[in-house]
């Protein structure tokens, strides 16, 4: 295994050449050893199969999900690494937020089972063919998938929980003189910086 240091190394050309076999790809070297690929959702399995079969991409580092509610889309990013080429390929696809269903790649990459279950719990996406979509982390959670942008965790917390009401002596003394807490931190966050004045 020889480390590859910069784009321009022949690994990059090999990879670029290889990726020509899949249609509809847009590739970009974003950094040394980091290749970004944007592609339509339906070609992803073909790409991953190609990468795994022909370029030694056996390691699925992660699947990340990004919610873009304004576009009505989820972005799925498959980070794969080749122990032979030492290049990370990040395959970006976008799928519609509704119904939010995509294919599992568990057959190709077993770690996908964990990531797909995690994305299902956190974003509510469904992966067809994933071996286990039962709850794992959020077994005691009944609310909406929390990582979705429309779920405002802070507002939920404010509604659900109360806070300590401290009554230290110094505060009582100050209040007796007409002072007191002028700005609570929760207030500040409510303002979202709109009103920076006291």
């Amino acid at each position, binding site marked *: 295994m020889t*480390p590859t240091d910069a784009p321009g190394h022949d690994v990059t050309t090999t990879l670029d050449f290889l990726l020509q076999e899949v249609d509809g790809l847009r590739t970009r070297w*974003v950094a040394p050893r980091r290749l970004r690929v944007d592609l339509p959702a339906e070609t992803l399995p073909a790409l991953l199969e190609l990468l795994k079969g022909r370029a030694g991409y*056996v390691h699925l580092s992660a699947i990340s999900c990004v919610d873009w509610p304004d576009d009505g889309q989820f972005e799925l990013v498959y980070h794969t690494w080749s*122990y032979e080429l030492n290049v*990370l390929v990040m395959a970006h696809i976008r799928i519609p937020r509704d119904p939010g269903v995509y294919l599992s790649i568990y057959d190709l990459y077993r770690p996908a089972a*964990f990531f797909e279950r995690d994305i299902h719990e956190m974003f509510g996406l469904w992966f067809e063919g994933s071996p286990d979509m039962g709850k*794992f982390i959020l077994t005691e959670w009944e609310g909406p998938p929390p990582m979705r942008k429309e779920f405002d*965790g802070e507002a939920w917390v404010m509604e659900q929980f109360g806070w300590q009401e401290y009554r230290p002596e110094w505060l009582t003394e100050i209040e007796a003189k007409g002072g007191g807490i002028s700005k609570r931190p929760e207030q500040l966050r409510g303002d979202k910086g709109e009103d920076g004045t006291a």
Partner: protein
Amino acid sequence: MRPENYQAVSHPPSHEYEVFFGPNHPGIEGNYALKVRLHGDEVTAARADGGYLHRGFEKLMEGRLWIQNIALVPRICVPDPVPMEVCYSLAIEALGGLEVPERAQWIRVMQLELSRIAAHLFTFGGNAATTGMYTPMFWGIADRDLILDLFEELSGGRVYHIYNIPGGVRRDLPEGYLKRVSDTLDYIESRLPDYDNLMFTNQVFVRRATGVGIMTQEQALDWGVTGPNLRATGLPFDVRRDDPYLIYDQLEFDVPVEEAGDAWARTLVRRAELKQSLRILRQVVARLPEIDGPIRAPIPNPLAWNLPLGDVYTRVESSKGELAYYVVSNGGDKPWRVHVRGPSAMHAVQVLEHLVTGARIEDVAQIMFSLDACPPEVDR
């Protein structure tokens, strides 16, 4: 011992029964659970149960400023927090186009390796304790404490250093700090024979570890295992060497491997790695005084800091394996999305379930500790 397990399950006559392994169980690393089905004392099925440490970090980060998150990230892996800080900082620096001064990079490497030693000492202790040998735990944690003292002096915090921020580090080294690092390294090095005598050449321990939780290289690759666990199956891959970050390409170190893929091999790899970390630290201590310059690239006012639109995937080798952050910015003052790929997410869930199945109940804890699973990385 999980409290719900207070009552046995009244089965029809059967040799099978089910036991909760955790979350309150000394054989579990942290607050985590395994549910196992036993036949006699052989595990016939196992299922990991996480989420006890779930805090919703990824959601919390979306609600906080770029800089505020530096206080949050080390909590994702408590025993080995520095890689978290560094990995997050690297992501922000890549997004914001910040150039980290060389001195800061060396200081970061120093912390990373100190943290790795501390984490490994911790793991050795835990690993020994699962087999009933508590002395290495008492020693290991006491010796780890000396490293925590170093961190305390450097960063003001023993466990959560919050010392790396985007752009560099927060403070320069205190007076005479490297001398104390060097002394501590001497001390730890002098202690290694004691550990060897007590633990690594202890016949009973070797016997307990050999052949337990065997994972072949094919399986390891198949399951996405990284770090020492992967290296214990014979694949010499280390992010520090093969996807270098900071100034690791200027350092000399080996990537230790073992072939067998069992708990003993994993323990040996960690032990060898600890020595490599000492070796790296010796180089850092020697080189750092020559490297002058600022410790931090100037960053804008953290209260008004927008990072340009973009995404980045940064990877760091933590003591558990490949740690990665996927950070997306939509051009705002807060992250749009942070995805933490904790190395334990792989080996603490599916691999653990896989290895435990078919093992004996006395080896379950040994398998978990030899994999060095860190549950908060799974739960986030």
